[in-house]
């Protein structure tokens, strides 16, 4: 296990998290935004796993959380894609800039 510790994992996950944030805010295509969200979720997963491994090695809570997150992410992706496709059908665009029906 050598010299790689918790900190390394946390830094990787942080970087991943902020890459996801950056993507979420800059990509105009909804599908790519969805991908960014997946990245963010994965960054969290890495954290859960890493904390479980390094801080509470004899417990499994981190694992369960990761599992649940993965499950929820799957559900979320499914719903999101359903919405995106529906939006595409109605407006012929999945550009987030065009989806401003919320205003007013």
């Amino acid at each position, binding site marked *: 296990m050598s010299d790689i510790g918790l900190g390394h994992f946390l830094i990787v996950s942080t970087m991943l998290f902020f890459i996801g944030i950056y993507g*979420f*805010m*800059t990509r*105009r295509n909804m599908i790519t935004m969805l991908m960014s969200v997946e990245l963010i979720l994965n960054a969290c997963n890495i954290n859960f796993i890493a904390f479980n491994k390094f801080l509470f090695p004899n417990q499994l809570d981190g694992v369960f959380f990761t599992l649940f997150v993965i499950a929820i992410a799957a559900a979320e992706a499914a719903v999101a894609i359903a919405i995106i496709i529906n939006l595409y059908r109605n407006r012929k665009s999945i550009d*987030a*800039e065009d989806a*401003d029906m919320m205003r*007013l």
Partner: protein
Amino acid sequence: MSDSLALLLVPALPLAAFLLIFLVGRVYFPKFSGILGTVIMLATTVISMATAYKYFFVTGKVDGVYQHLIAFKFTWLPFSENVSIDMGAIMDPISMVMICVVTFISLMVHIYSLGYMKGEDRFAIYYSYLGLFTFSMLGLVLSTNIFQIYIFWELVGVSSFLLIGYYFDKPSAVAASKKAFIVTRFADAGFLIGILVLSYYTGTLDFETMIARLTVPGSELTAITTAGFLGVSALTWGLMLVFMGGAGKSAMFPLHIWLPDAMEGPTPVSALIHAATMVVAGVYLVARLFPIFAISCPVGLDVVAYIGVFSSMFAAIIACTQTDIKRVLAYSTMSQIGYMMFALGVAGYGGENGLGFTASFFHLFTHAMFKALLFLGAGAVIHYVHSNDMRDMGGLRKHMPVTHIAFLIACLAIAGVPGFAGFFSKEEILTAAHNSNPIIYWCAIATAALTAFYMFRLYFNIFWNKEYHAHHSDSHHGDDHHHGEAPWSMKAPLIILALLSIATGYIPFGNFVSSDGQALHSEFHLTSAILPVSLAIGAIIVAMLFYRKKNAVPDKIAGTIKGVYTGALHKFYIDELYLFVTKKLIFGIGGTIAAWFDKNVVDGVVNFSATVGENFSDTLKKMQNGKVQSYAMYFFTGVLGFVLLFVFLWDKF
């Protein structure tokens, strides 16, 4: 009838006439209104004459001195414990003379108007306004309180405004009425400030108290003479400002410009208001405050004298060139009031020095008679010719003999021909001037000659000169144009006034009116009368030569003194100057600046703040743009902010 009741009735009756005719008569008995007004006026005249008689011959004199009696007085508007506006009636020689003049001339005008105004649309309104004016004028002369005089001062101003603007659909009449009101209003603003100054130092508004405090040495007199502004004592300021009000009403230079234009009103109105009564209010006001002027502020009296004599001469010169007969009379009025003013100005308090005071009132009295007569005669002429311009007239002596004789008498009276009323009063004024100030005296003599000249210029132009042809009264007047001279209602006042224009001169006026209440026996010096009388007669002869027959002499003479002539014809451009200063400079520029400032700066700031608010809210609104990503960004930034806050600041607590 007690004095207080009588003097209450004197102003109240015309007021009642006004209210009755204005509210009821106008609608229900318009034709009868004239008669009603005249009857009420007759009653007023009788009461006031009876009261005056009683005052002068029965009750007024105690130990040879005419008393100031207060017929009644009540507090109208209390300002503080001592200072209040009281309404009341004062009885002293000048007020008694004035109520007689006012009611009598008003009665004459009421009678005359029955014929003159017959058939007018607003006949009833006319009579109601006459009632309002008479009420205000009587209230003015009976005032016991300087603020009371100011109140009625304003009221005569407004009734004059209403009567000048009687032909309200004529733009020139409207303009003239506005001009009259605004010019006098300006003067009145000065009057008001003067009242404030005087009342502040004397602590009273009551005439008698004020005069007492300002003539007898005491703390009030010391305070007002020591306090000053710009090197002039507060007393002089106060009196000059009050005089400014008087000068405005009495059309003294430079506040005279409204008077000639005021001739737009019906002619009887000009006779009543702008010849005999309202315009002498300034003289009356100075006379009312005369003890203060004479004893405590001789400088002020000098100003009065010089303004009076200058106005008198100035107006006489202009009168020589005017062709509108009513304007000639208007300038003549201004000139004669100037006479009265400087007569007051040269007078002193008490004894022989007070000759000017007596003379001034004497002249006021006689002038009221013959000037009213002149105006009413001119009215008859205008009624006949349907024109104001003397170039449309000529040779009328055969067409209207009564008017002709009456007018001639009036002209002789105003010219100061011996035997007529004007001679006596003018002679007294000249004597007073002679005794005090040579400059004023010589100016007055010159003015007297000019007066005789322009009056007879007027007379000959109307009644002699060319033959009268009714050429301009063709189709639309038809036959009923030559309706004869005038109805009896118009002739009767002419005859009465003509007789009085002779008779009033023989009243020993000094016995009744003098500066200190004691009888003043003025000797009549034959020698001093030679010069003015001969000048007057000479001027009449010159006028006769020029105008009796139509000839070219006047035009030639006008040509030789072209500069003066054109100047006088255009009234020395005072009107234009005023118009420029007020309309262009003060109101034009001031108004424009104020309006601009209001629109752009004051309102601009308001609108600007609104715009800023709106723009700010627009910016905020743009943040709420419905785009998920923007929201995400704000959200994220916010979270970041909070994290920062918690990480770095939270620790410290």
